[in-house]
């Protein structure tokens, strides 16, 4: 039987080699003695572009320099749902990071379950900060009565982006600050010509719900129930109107057309308007077919004249885990990161609007930043900041919109079924 290679290796050798490999591999270089490790969970952001990454790295390195003996362990986690799942599980297991980047759209699950520390004592303490430096409606996203669970870093309202060049070419006047749905539709119709569309519509619920708000409809009522609100006439009318943009007026590409092309019509200048947030500017700055100077920003239009425009604010900020072992150090980090000096560096990346009024104003030498500043007061928090399990509502909402747009389902019936499903799901919690 002494033929062939594998047969010659005695079994115990294989075992011990394997065991040794495992032992070796499970050893990790531990932290150096006398250093305190501060674990910080953030999104993958650091890797998405080299300028932003360089700035972030310098900011963290500077904190380590200012605090000898402190080592920052940055834990970058990709995605939004994956981020929530991972951080939540680490809380359940008691293995959570010290400082957590909290996103408004999923803040409720952490705040409502008592995972986070109330930061009020630190804000008001000796080493505190002045909350008047921040936009009030942005700070309030992570507030529960007197308690505050996050210090905001940056945020964005959802706005209407429009391409001034395409408007000029079609001879269409730019949107005004209190434009209506009728005006929007008239413009969109005139901008739809040849290969070009007036608007691009997304089934992504965070992108269309604020339109519903502008018709005084919504998905959840003050009682937290969807029935009575998501199936109200105002919501049905708004959803039907949005559907008609594609189905009747054909001023926006259909969903299947969008999926087939897989492209971004607004960024490729084949659509004149879209709903998006501040992050959009980062991509548009590199888009070959649009120039940043040709981009205009307007509030979402209202359904009837005289109504006040309203939009959603997506925000992210820093929180401290309830059982954090070094809360003072964690606070020192948050205070450092949200300081004027550091924010001036960080916000160069241009992903959001700075939650500090001073920096946001400084940056508003740019015309588009000014537009954002004007829209901010009309922003309200996303449902996910208050309602746990709201991700379910968003995924169901998207499916519902798909059904209406792709299969031609009736909005009233779809919304009624949707409301029931939401109440059943949220009622279980």
């Amino acid at each position, binding site marked *: *039987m002494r033929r062939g290679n*594998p*047969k010659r290796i005695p*079994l115990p050798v*294989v075992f011990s080699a*394997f065991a040794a*490999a*495992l032992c070796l*591999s*499970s*050893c*990790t270089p531990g932290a150096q003695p006398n250093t305190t490790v501060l674990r910080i969970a953030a*999104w*993958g*952001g*650091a*890797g*998405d*572009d*080299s300028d*932003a*990454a*360089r700035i*972030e*790295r310098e900011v963290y390195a500077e904190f380590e320099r200012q605090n000898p003996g402190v080592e920052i*362990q*940055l*834990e*970058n*986690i*990709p*995605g*939004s749902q*994956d981020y929530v*799942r*991972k951080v939540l*599980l680490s809380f*359940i*297991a*008691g293995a959570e*990071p010290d400082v957590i*980047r909290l996103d408004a759209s999923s803040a409720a699950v952490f705040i409502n379950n008592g995972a986070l520390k109330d930061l009020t004592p630190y804000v008001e303490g000796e080493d505190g900060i002045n909350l008047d430096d921040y936009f009030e409606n942005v700070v309030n996203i992570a507030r529960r009565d007197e308690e505050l669970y996050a210090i905001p870093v940056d945020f*964005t309202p959802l706005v209407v982006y429009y391409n001034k060049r395409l408007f000029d070419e079609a001879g269409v006047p730019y949107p005004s600050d209190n434009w209506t749905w009728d005006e929007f539709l008239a413009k969109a119709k005139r901008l739809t010509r040849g290969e070009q569309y007036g608007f691009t519509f997304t089934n992504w619920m965070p992108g269309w719900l604020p339109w519903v708000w502008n018709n005084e409809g919504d998905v959840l009522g003050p009682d937290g129930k969807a029935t009575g609100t998501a199936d109200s006439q105002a919501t049905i009318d708004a959803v039907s109107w949005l559907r008609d943009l594609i189905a009747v007026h054909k001023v926006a590409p259909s969903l299947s057309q969008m999926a087939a*092309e897989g*492209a*971004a019509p607004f960024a*490729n200048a084949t659509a004149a308007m879209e709903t998006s947030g501040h*992050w*959009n500017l*980062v*991509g*548009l*700055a*590199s*888009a*070959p077919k649009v120039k940043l100077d040709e981009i205009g920003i307007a509030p979402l239009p209202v359904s009837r004249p005289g109504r006040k425009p309203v939009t959603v604010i*997506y925000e*992210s900020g820093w929180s401290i885990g309830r059982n954090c072992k070094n809360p003072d150090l964690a606070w020192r980090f948050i205070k450092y990161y949200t300081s004027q000096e550091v924010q001036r560096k960080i916000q160069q990346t241009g*992903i*959001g609007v700075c939650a500090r009024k001073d920096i946001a104003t400084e940056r508003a030498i740019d015309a588009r930043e000014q537009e954002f500043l004007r829209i901010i007061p009309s922003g309200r928090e996303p449902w996910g900041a208050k309602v746990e399990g709201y991700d379910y509502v968003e995924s169901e909402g998207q499916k519902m919109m798909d059904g209406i747009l792709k299969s031609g389902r009736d909005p009233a019936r779809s919304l009624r079924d949707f409301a029931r499903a939401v109440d059943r799901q949220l009622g279980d919690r």
Partner: protein
Amino acid sequence: MIRRTLTWAALISLAIFLLAPFVWMVLVSLHPAKAPIPDYADLIPKDPQWKNYALVLFTPEVPVTRFLVNSLVVTLCVVLGQLLVTSMAAYGLARVRFRGASTVFGTFLASMMFAGVVTQIPVYLLMRELRWLDTFAALIIPGLSSAFNVFLLRQFMLGIPFELDEASQMDGATHWQIYWRVVLPLCKPALATAAAFTFFAVWTDFFWPLLATNSMRMRTLEVGLSIFKNSYGTTNWPLQMAAAVVTLLPMILVFILAQKWFVRGIQMSGIK
């Protein structure tokens, strides 16, 4: 002749169909970083940005070589370890007669009925108790067993003539010797199939490595390179696609090298 032409035409169109997404991926990866996904008409970049690959591979903030080493270590350990562990279990279930063998085998099969996510939280808690989070142990050890491979190998081993065992026993061979010197060498095709499946599963696994590791230096390629999304969920498509190409290449390489084993393994287990 016509049949041949038709066959070729069908195969070529199928190949184009299957290759199109890959070509799209490569083309998008050559557009300037942060640029939007281009329309079809502009898919071919005017000024190919090969430096995107340099950005992905050599940015100091994203230690891709470390990710690659991690992925290789984890995949190699899991594949080899799993072959060893599952083939031993399969041997026991296929060749050793003991009371309750069918119950044990049934339990293995039953465990396949659970979706993987169900066990993820208990396994995570266990890893935490053992203080293995953020170490190679957490990435490797939970992956060492696979009910599917036990099943696959057991079925294969049942097809090997029992006379071989008996003859070996006559010669005084122990179970260990029969397992290692007689049965295992005859299982090569099944082992190759199992290895290929495990390799692809481990290499592309995303959620478990994401849960089990925290620091950059413990990330595998799949997790490490998926961070080209920024905080608000927008994606730097060209860099993300470059990263996807980088992640895919080793897999394609392994597939080309192991193709023979892969195909033969499936054929053999199909015949048996």
